[in-house]
């Protein structure tokens, strides 16, 4: 099959659109789930500010289970849920659900790791001020860990971009899928090169922003 640029450009923009849509929505929702998840893993652990073995163990296992299931199987496993949420198990929007299931626990772990690095003195300070657990989290833990959190989230969003390439399995489309369907499966080197370049630029951009913000916050 011949390669045709006139076919390619609209296709590329469509895919780019899909990718950005998936990343944006999936990342946003994953943040909304993953950050509280990571926070909960930190505060409920042994000697955390709201130590609670049951909650910790439960979440720890849930995260582990989700993190251990291969993505494609995860997609299948949650089809009923996907259908419930977006009305279909096929298409870009439907792909967002498994992407969230993949990314949220991932963010949870990364956030957990970042928050655990916050100095014990910070929590002491907060407690001495009579801060509520909510305030400890929002006013102390998160701001103090922010620099590391940003790098963690950068890692997560890049991981998410990688995962969107697999969203093609349920008709999610996107630039990664374009690369695989045409660049890889159909050997259209031009597609492969262009899509990979776009992905590299995207990742490079995100990483640069992450590095910049993180460094600015760290101030060193």
């Amino acid at each position, binding site marked *: 099959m011949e390669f045709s640029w006139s076919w390619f450009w609209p296709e590329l923009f469509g895919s780019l659109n899909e990718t950005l849509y998936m990343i944006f929505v999936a990342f946003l929702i994953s943040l909304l789930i993953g950050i509280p998840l990571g926070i909960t893993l930190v505060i409920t652990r042994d000697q955390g500010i709201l130590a609670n073995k049951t909650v910790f163990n439960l979440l720890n296992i849930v995260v582990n289970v989700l993190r251990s299931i291969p993505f494609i199987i995860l997609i299948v496993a949650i089809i009923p849920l996907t259908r419930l949420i977006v009305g279909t198990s096929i298409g870009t929007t439907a792909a967002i659900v498994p992407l969230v299931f993949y990314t949220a626990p991932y963010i949870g772990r990364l956030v957990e790791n970042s928050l655990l690095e916050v100095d014990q*003195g*910070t929590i*002491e*300070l907060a*407690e*001495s*001020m*009579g*801060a*509520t657990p909510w*305030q400890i989290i929002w*006013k*102390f833990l998160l*701001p*103090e860990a*922010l*620099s590391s959190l940003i790098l963690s989230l950068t890692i997560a969003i890049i991981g998410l971009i990688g995962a969107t390439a697999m969203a093609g399995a349920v008709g999610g489309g996107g630039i990664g899928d374009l690369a695989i369907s045409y660049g890889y499966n159909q050997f259209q080197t031009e597609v492969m090169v262009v899509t990979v370049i776009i992905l590299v630029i995207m990742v490079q951009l995100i990483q640069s922003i992450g590095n910049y913000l993180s460094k600015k*916050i760290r*101030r*060193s």
Partner: protein
Amino acid sequence: MLRLEGIRKLYGEDGDNPVEALKNINLEVKRGEIYGVVGYSGAGKSSLIRCVNLLEKPTAGRVIVNGKDLTKLPAKDLRTERKKIGMVFQQFNLLHSKTAFGNVAMPLILEGYSKEAIHDKVMKLLSFVGLADKADHYPEQLSGGQKQRIGIARALATDPHVLLCDEATSALDPDTTNAVLDLLKQVRDEMGITILLITHEMNVIRDICDKVAVIDGGMIVEQGTTINLFTSPQTDIAKSFVRTVLNDALPEATWKNILEKGSSNSVYRILYKGESANSPLLSNIAKKFSVDVNVIHGTITTIQGQPFGNIIIEFIGDSREVNIVVKYVQEQNTTIREVAADGI
């Protein structure tokens, strides 16, 4: 206002070698009192003060602040009480992610003050501690003493009823220390704040504390009013602390000098306090007796408004006459005793 009853603190309870940092501590601080705690490094001072706001959960004992036993309070009530207890940390515990302003503003933000109220209050506090121009600096751009001052300003931000100071002036130069102590006194006088203060600087105790406890090996070995501790310390450790300010040990060089002159047996320490300090004792001796009086060492000062003297004098003259002088001094209700070989 603040009472510790039978406080015990064991660290590393479940480990191999637990450390018993506090053993049966009993201590009471009245409203508006400034109470000092001194002791050697590792004596348990920080552990004690951290038990007051339950940053360290005591292994046993009760912590009663404002009539409430904090150890028995549910989490929510404990938070309410903690809001009324300001704390200056030995290691500052500043938030790296916040500027000097942001650090001081923190407790006010938690309380939900308005933006303007916060700004006014914080800038006032920063000016107080001489750091108004550093408001926008982050902790790592501040010197050690500046960090400590931020910690002090922060602890005072919400007008607490109780203030816990763990070595709040240890990184400060004398002038800044005085400014901080004046501020604390002022806060106490104006708002009746109760202050529990850890320090190893006896001049801080002298200048500001009403009462003092000396802690050693996790136990209070001596406590009482500041003037009493200074004028008649009982334990060796208290004496050694007092000495740092009152300078009552004869320096080795001086002592050697005296020994060389062979006059060691006419070296006496005189301690006088209160009214007696105002009568010209030395002058009287010189006038009344045929001995010369040479002050070789000592301090005459005022502790908590009362004059106090602790001096070492050499009597130059006939030893019998000296004995008469010693008796005369004793009759003036003043302590006099021969100085021992170690200069104490």
